[in-house]
C-alpha cells in the first residue's frame, strides 16, 4: 500500500465528528473502527466497492475502473441510482488489464483509456478508481491523473481505494476523500441563495431523492449539490458555497461534512429521510440551520405548516394499514443507518421489531437503536443464515426486511420478504416513501401466495398419497399465524 493511502486511511479513522472515536485511546483509534474480517465467514463488499457506491451516482462523469475485468465486469450497472439527465454514469469503463500490464505496469493503458473516454464521450470529468492488482503492482494513479488533467484540461480524479484496503464502509470514506482533495471547492456556483444546502450521503436509489426534493422546492430551499445522488460534477465542485450541510446515511461520508465545516465553516447536521418523524425533524433542522446562517426566519413557520400538512396526509394514508400491520413482527437484516432509521418508520406503522442486525453498524448507530427501541432492543451482531431461517420457519417473525443476498433465507422458509437494500425497485424516502414502505409490507404479508406455498404435497417422501384426507381439508395444521390471518382467521380460530 502506498504511503499516501496509508496516511489517508489513518486520517479517515481520526474522524473528529465521531464521538466514539474521540473517546478512544490513541492506540485503539489507530486500529480503526472496523472489525478484522474473518476468512471463510465474511460478507459484503470491499473498499473499492464502497468508493464506487459513494461516487458512481455523479451522473455526468465517466467512472473508469483501473484493474482486471472482475472489478467492473462483474459489477457494473448493478444499482438503481437515478439520474434526471445524463446517463453516462451507467456505462462501465475499465482498463481490463491483462498479464502484460501486471508485469510491466498498467499506467500507459490507463492514460490511453482516459484519452479514449474524453475523445468519445467528452465528460466534464473522469473518476479513476484504483483496484487491488494495480495497487499491488505499483501503478501510480495519482500521477497518471495529474498528467492527464494537464494534458486534457479536464479534471481527472484519482480515487485511491483498492479492495484490500478494507471493507465497503471504509471505501465510502475514501471515495469522499477524493471529492475533498480534488473536487469540492474547485468551481464557483453561478449564483447563491440564502437557502442553499448540500445533501451528503444520499445516493438517490430508485429515485428516493425525488420523493424529498419537492418538499424542499416548495420551501424555496435549493439543493446546491447532492453528494452524490443525481449529482453533476460542477454541482459537487461548487458545494462549498452551501449554507448548510445535511448528512444522510449515518457515517458513510461524515468526513465530507466535518471537513467542509473546518474549511468553509458550513454547519452540518445528521438527518434521515426514512420515517415520518425523522423526515419532519430533518426539515426542521434544515430550516433552523438556514435561518441561523442568515435566511429570513419566516422559513421556520412555513416549514412547520408544510410538516403539518404532509404529516397529516401521510398518517391518514398509513392509518389504513396500521390496523392490519399492528403487532406484526419484523426481522431487520441490514446495516448502518437502516438498522435504526427504518426501525422508527416501522414502529410508526404499528409493527414490532424482533431483531435488527448491527453487523455493519457503527457504534453510533447502535446508540441510536437503543434510543429508539429502548434497552430491550434485540441487536443481532452476527446471525448466520441458518439462524435467520429457523427464526422465520418457526414463525418468530412475520416478515424479513433485508438486502437481496439474504432474501432466500426468508423465501425458502416460505416467509414474506421485502428488499430494503440497493437492488430494490421501490423508493422509501420522505412521507411518500413511508406510505410506500408500509403498503409494500402489507402487500407482502397479506399476499395469498404464502397460504399456497405452505400447502404440503398430499403425498409422503415415498410418493404414496396420504390416506383419504384432501389437501384442502387440512391446511390449518401447518398454517402459521400469519397465513391464518391472511385468510381471515384469528389466532384462536387456528386449529392446533
Amino acid at each position, binding site marked *: 500500500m502506498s504511503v499516501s493511502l496509508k496516511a489517508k486511511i489513518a486520517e479517515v479513522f481520526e474522524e473528529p465528528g465521531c464521538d466514539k472515536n474521540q473517546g478512544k485511546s490513541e492506540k485503539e483509534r489507530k486500529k480503526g473502527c472496523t472489525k478484522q474480517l474473518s476468512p471463510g465467514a465474511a460478507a459484503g463488499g470491499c473498499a473499492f466497492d464502497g468508493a464506487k457506491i459513494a461516487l458512481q451516482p455523479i451522473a455526468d462523469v465517466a467512472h473508469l475502473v483501473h*484493474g482486471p*475485468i*472482475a472489478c467492473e465486469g*462483474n*459489477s457494473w450497472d448493478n444499482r438503481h441510482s437515478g439520474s434526471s439527465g445524463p446517463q453516462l454514469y451507467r456505462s462501465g469503463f475499465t*482498463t481490463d488489464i*491483462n498479464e502484460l500490464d501486471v508485469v510491466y505496469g498498467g499506467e500507459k493503458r490507463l492514460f490511453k483509456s482516459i484519452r479514449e473516454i474524453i475523445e468519445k464521450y467528452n465528460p466534464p470529468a473522469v473518476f479513476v478508481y484504483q483496484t487491488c492488482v494495480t495497487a499491488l503492482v505499483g501503478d501510480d494513479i495519482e500521477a497518471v491523473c495529474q498528467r492527464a488533467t494537464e494534458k486534457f484540461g479536464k479534471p481527472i480524479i484519482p480515487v485511491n481505494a483498492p*479492495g484490500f484496503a478494507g*471493507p465497503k464502509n471504509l471505501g465510502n470514506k475514501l471515495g469522499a476523500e477524493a471529492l475533498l482533495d480534488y473536487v469540492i471547492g474547485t468551481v464557483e456556483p453561478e449564483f447563491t441563495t440564502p437557502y442553499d444546502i448540500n445533501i451528503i450521503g444520499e445516493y438517490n436509489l430508485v429515485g428516493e431523492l425525488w420523493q424529498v426534493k419537492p418538499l424542499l422546492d416548495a420551501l424555496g430551499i435549493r439543493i446546491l449539490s447532492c453528494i452524490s445522488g443525481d449529482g453533476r460534477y460542477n454541482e459537487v465542485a461548487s458545494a462549498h458555497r452551501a449554507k448548510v450541510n445535511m448528512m444522510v446515511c449515518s457515517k458513510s461520508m461524515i468526513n465530507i461534512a466535518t471537513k467542509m465545516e473546518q474549511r468553509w465553516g458550513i454547519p452540518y447536521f445528521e438527518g434521515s429521510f426514512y420515517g415520518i418523524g425523522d423526515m419532519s425533524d430533518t426539515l426542521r433542522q434544515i430550516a433552523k440551520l438556514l435561518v441561523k446562517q442568515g435566511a429570513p426566519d419566516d422559513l421556520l413557520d412555513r416549514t412547520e405548516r408544510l410538516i403539518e400538512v404532509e404529516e397529516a396526509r401521510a398518517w391518514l394514508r398509513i392509518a389504513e394499514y396500521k390496523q392490519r400491520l399492528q403487532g406484526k413482527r419484523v426481522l431487520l437484516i441490514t446495516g448502518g443507518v437502516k438498522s435504526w432509521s427504518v426501525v422508527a418508520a416501522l414502529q410508526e406503522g404499528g409493527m414490532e421489531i424482533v431483531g435488527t442486525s448491527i453487523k455493519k453498524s457503527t457504534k453510533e448507530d447502535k446508540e441510536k437503536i437503543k434510543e429508539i427501541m429502548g434497552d430491550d432492543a434485540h441487536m443481532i451482531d452476527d446471525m448466520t443464515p441458518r439462524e435467520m431461517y429457523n427464526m422465520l420457519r418457526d414463525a418468530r417473525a412475520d416478515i424479513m426486511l433485508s438486502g437481496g443476498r439474504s432474501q432466500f433465507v426468508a423465501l425458502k422458509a416460505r416467509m414474506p420478504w421485502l428488499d430494503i437494500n440497493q437492488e430494490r425497485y421501490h423508493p422509501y424516502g420522505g412521507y411518500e416513501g413511508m406510505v410506500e414502505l408500509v403498503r409494500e409490507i402489507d402487500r407482502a404479508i397479506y399476499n395469498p401466495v404464502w397460504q399456497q406455498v405452505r400447502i404440503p404435497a398430499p403425498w409422503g417422501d415415498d410418493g404414496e398419497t396420504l390416506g383419504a384426507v384432501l389437501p384442502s381439508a387440512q391446511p390449518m395444521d401447518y398454517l402459521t399465524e400469519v397465513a391464518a390471518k391472511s385468510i381471515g382467521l384469528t389466532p384462536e380460530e387456528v386449529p392446533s
Partner: protein
Amino acid sequence: MASVVESKKACAVNPLKMSQPLGASFAFLGLDACMPVMHGSQGCTSFGLVLLVRHFKEAIPLQTTAMNEVTSILGGYDNIEAALLNIRKRAAPRVIAICSTGLTETKGDDVDGYIVTVRKRKPELDDTEIIYVSTPDYVGGFEDGYSHAVTAIVKTLVKPLPVNARQVTLLPGSHLAPADIDELREIIEAFGLSCIVLPDISGSLDGHIAPDWRGTTLGGTTLEQIRAAGASALTLGVGEQTREAAEALQNIAGTPLEIFDRLTGLEVNDRLLQRLAQVSGQPVPAKYRRQRSQLLDAMLDGHFYTGGIKVAIAAEPDLLLAVGSLLHEMGAELHCCVSTTKSASHARLPATTVILGDLEDFERSAADCDLLITHSHGRQAAERLNKPLLRIGFPVFDRIGNAHRCQVGYRGTMALIFEIANLMIAQIGHHHATDWPLTPEALRAASAVAQAKPDQIQASARYQETVAAASA
C-alpha cells in the same frame, strides 16, 4: 469461418466479459454440498455473489479468504487455513473449492503448496475434499475459468475404474442452464444409459425449495458420482470449453470423448441421438422422432421472421456459436459478432469476423441490425438504439426463470426459435400511407400527368361529382 479481430482499445466500455474466478465458482456451484471460495479480497466474492443471485434468484454459497493489504503482501497461507477451518466448522461441506483471483495471483501465492501444508497441520479437514484452480482475473474470462475449474475437479477427484458400458459422463458448458442439463440427461437416459453430469447445476441452481437450510450448495454432482466418472464408457462435452476436462478424463481413465460444439440446432441433435443409439445399441425413442418433426415445423414457421434479418450477437464463445449458428441456419445474417476470449469455436462461426471486445463495439456495429442478442447488460444499448433485445447467457438479471429456459435438444431449439420469431413479430409495425414516397426524380418524371388534355380533366371532375352525389 469467422476471423478473430481483437479490439484495439485501451479502455473497455460496457464490458461483455466477466472474470475467470466467477466462471470457476459457477462450476463449483454444480457440486453437491460444496462451498466455493475465492482467494482474494472480499469484494471479489461480493461482486460475483451479487451477480449470481441476480441471475438465479437463489441463495449462492460463496466465500472469501478476505485478504487485506498485509496478507496480500506477506502471503495468504493463514487466510486459506482460517477460511478452510471456518467453513468446515460453520457449513460442514463435503467439498471446499478454491479459486485464486488477480490479487493473490499477482503476489504469487502457492495455493497448491498451502493445501499440502494445511492437510498436514489440520487433520480435522480430513473428511473434506479440497479442490484448487488457478484463475487470475487478468487472463481469460468466465468461460475459461469454468473450463479450468471443471478440469481441476476431474484431476483432483477422478480415478480410473473398470468400464461400465452403460454409463456416460456429460460435461455441460457454462452456457447451459439447469433446464438444458435436465433435457440432456433425459435424452441420454431415454437410451437406457446412466449419466453423470459434471458439474450439475440442475441440482443446485434449478430453484427448488429444500426441506432445510444449508450453508452449502443444495444439490449437484456428488463426490461419489464424480469418482464414478472414471468408469464411464464415453465423455460427451457440450461446447469447446469442455474439451480440456474431457481430455483430462481421457488421460486419467482412458475414456473416449466426443465434443459437440453446440446442441442447439437440428443437425447437431441428429448427431447426438445417432451417437447415443450407437453407444446404447438402442433405437432412437419415438418421443425424439416426434420432437424432431415438431422442430422441423417450428423452423418452417419461424423462418418467415428470421430470414434476412440482420443480427448483432455478443456472447461467450460457445454460446455465440450455438445461437449464431442456429440463426444462420434460419436465414439470419450475423452482421456483428462480439465475444470475450479466444476459442476454437470462433473458427466455426458462420460470420466474417468475431470481435473480441465489449458492448461498446457491439453497440457501434449494431446500429443497422434488426435484432440484438446478448446478456442483460445489453439493455442500455437496446434502449439507445431502440431495437429488440434477446437476453441470453449470463447474467440475465432483469428477467426471471433463467434456470428453466431450455435451448438445447430438439425441444430447446424449438423454444429458442419461437422466442426469436415472436420477438421479431412484435416488431412488425403497421404501414402508413406515406411509407413509400417516390423519389424526386420519379415525381419530376410523373409531373407530365398534370399537363393532361383539358377534356380528360373535365371527365375526371364529372366523375367526382357523380361519386359525391351517390354518397349523399
